[in-house]
């Protein structure tokens, strides 16, 4: 059961402020992080996972300040993520992709196979990863992230590339992960998925936090509709 706090995080790229003084809390369960393109969602993920240093602000996990830790150190504390623009290891097979992430564990070969079955892409196990369809590659990133047995899982647009049935299966998987006590953060454009499965939703717009609350609160919020419709 882990709690992530983002406190006053600002990220500037030269003149542009991509994330502007954002503070939010992620509790166990499924949390949605939504907003129009360019709202700063992926940049915030980069900051939380340690791939980007914020210009100011801090990130804590269970009250420990992790702002100065590198990505691999955060991973060992239980932070894992997937990527909006896929980052699978294209030269390795699907199975090897997962294996890389769990080789410090016992019986890694079997665990890797089980994880592929769990996300539903066991059929691609032997294929080279840069040849599988986008949807399967996204699920592969999920399996690979799960291989680190994370307490905090950051999923960046996991459902794009999935069809309706696959999306439903993915939704059930989200509930399972949440039931296992993991905190899952979902960046998503599929509103049915967000409203259907999230316990809590944060809305970003132009780098600022617009509103936080339950799906119902967010749905009723005037500013959210404006932000999306422009």
């Amino acid at each position, binding site marked *: 059961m882990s709690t992530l706090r983002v406190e006053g995080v600002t990220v500037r790229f030269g003149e542009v402020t991509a994330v502007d003084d954002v503070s939010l809390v992620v509790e166990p369960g499924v949390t949605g992080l939504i907003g129009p393109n360019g709202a700063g969602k992926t940049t915030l993920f980069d900051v939380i996972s340690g791939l980007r240093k914020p210009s100011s602000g801090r990130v804590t996990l269970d009250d420990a300040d992790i702002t100065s830790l*590198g*990505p*691999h150190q955060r*991973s060992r504390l239980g932070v*894992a993520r997937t990527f909006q623009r896929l980052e699978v290891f294209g*030269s390795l097979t699907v199975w090897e*992709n997962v294996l890389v992430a769990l080789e410090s564990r016992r019986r890694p070969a079997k665990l890797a196979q089980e994880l592929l079955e769990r996300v539903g892409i066991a059929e691609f196990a032997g294929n080279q*990863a*840069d040849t599988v369809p986008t949807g399967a590659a996204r699920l592969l990133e999920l399996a690979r992230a799960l291989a680190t047995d994370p307490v905090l899982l950051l999923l960046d647009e996991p459902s794009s590339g999935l069809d309706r049935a696959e999306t439903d299966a993915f939704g059930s998987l989200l509930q399972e992960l949440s039931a296992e006590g993991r905190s899952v953060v979902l960046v998503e454009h599929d509103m049915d998925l967000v409203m259907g499965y999230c316990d809590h939703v944060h809305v970003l717009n132009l780098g600022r936090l617009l509103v936080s609350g339950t799906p119902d609160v967010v749905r009723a919020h005037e500013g959210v509709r404006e932000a999306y419709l422009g």
Partner: protein
Amino acid sequence: MTALLAYTIFGLVTGGAYAVVAGGLVLTYSTSKVFNVGHGAIGMVMAFLYWELAENRGLPQWLALLLVVGVCAPLFGLVIERFIMRRLAGAPVGITLVAGVGVLVGLIGVAQVIWPPQARPVRPFLDQLGVHIGQSFVSGHDLVTLACAVLVAGGLYVLLNRTRTGLAMRACVDAPELAALYGTRPHRLSALSWAIGSALAALGGILLTPVVQLDYVTMTLLVITAYTAALVGRLRSLPWTFAGALGLGLVQSYAVAYLPSSPFWISFRAAIPALLLFVVLLAMPQSPLRIGGVRGTRGVAVPNALTTGVGAGLFAGAVVALALLVDSVVAGQLALALVFGIVLLSMVLLTGYGGVVSLGQFTFVGVGAVTVARLGSASPLSLLIGAVVAAAVGALIALTALRVSGLYLALATLGFAQLMDKLVLQSPVAFGVRGSLQVPRMVESATGQLLLAAGVFVLVGIGVLAVRRGRLGRRMIAVKDSSAACATLGLNVRWIRVWVFSLSAAIAGLAGGLFAQLRETVAASDFQLFNNLPLLLFAVIAGVTSVSGALLGGVLLMLLPVLQSGFPAFAGVAVVLLGVAAAGLARDPNGLVSWGFRAWSWRRA
């Protein structure tokens, strides 16, 4: 005071010439995103051409300068851009680097064919002019150099910041497709930047000739200084590049003036450009882990344990059969080919699997050879010590270059190789004052040497394949494909790289020990900095992703000097062919052997 002024002026003049060269490098890089390793070689060939016109054919200096800088060099830049670099747009750094090294080596071959070695004095410009500043004399040539530097600085600034063409050039770097939509023509702009870049390389080369003399390799590698200056400007900023070039010129000049002239400090002076390159790289900001898009490479199939065993058995059988058939001269040559093959196996690991281009791999061979030679006896233990020392040196370079990756890492290996070359391998530290050491052989007969080399090759080959199939191999490839994802999975990307570097250096060092005892006499001249470059090219041409490729590359490396001494007329041509082949084949690092693999799989299909 007078001396200080004189050395300052000398430093500024040299720095001015560096600035001209470095300015061209930054221009081509910032508009085509290809770092031209061959930039210095272009300057070298054009300086030779200038000598041909101005000194050999007796053209007036100004006309020769105009023809070379204004016509020949730009045309040459256009040709390189059109036939080599354009095909590589968007290719990974490793591939463009190899193509650049191919151009470099090819140009050295061209120069050797057209202008065989001899002394070629070049008259300075305006040698009857000159001014006195205080008690220091500034020659006409110095004034011309400074004027050129100022003109080039001003010209490039105006071009990039004040003209439509310059604006379009800068736009094309960021988004060539988008710029094309707005009516610019990325190809044309890239061609223009290569033309100007080559002209500046030529101008810088010609200005430097009275100082450094016309020489194929010295002039080509002189641009390491220009690389350093360009890196001060992060390969983008022209003002910083110029400042860096002037600073380098001054540091070098003051070093000549004020450092003691004991043998160590003399070699230290020569190492200053490389040392500064290293310092600049260390001062670079941590390169961010690249995110965005799937990368994968299609290697040749990795044999499983059974196939490896069968392959090793067949190879061993073939070597034993050969050992019985051939005379001792050929056996010695085959042994050398296998030793080179082991060096290339170290590159299969580092470059083929790990995706790291090393421009200094032969340095580790030198380290292993010197260690064994210094130990004075060739035994399995001393070979092992040689490998360990090389591994330690490899770890050192990986640790110092931890912050940088890709192009900068490759340049760091080059800087490191030059540092080792000047400070250790070419100085009395390594081979003593006579410049050579005797090493007793482990086994006396040439046949024995062949079997020894074959045994080590088989063991290392099996080891490399085992690494590839195992945990470290998967990790190396994962780091190559996406270091960002690796980091978020808890892998320490830097330590993996240190491991790979050390392991690869250890293999190269082991080969160095074998080389030393096979040759019986090893000398500083065996490990010149330049030898690194053909090594990389042969690795890529033969195939840097497989053990068979390493074997083929080893044979080719052994054959090159044999062919060159057998057909002296062919010597330079062979080097040209090597460069051209590498530039052409750079796209496919699986190399020539992969054609064989493909033919085999078709036959079976």
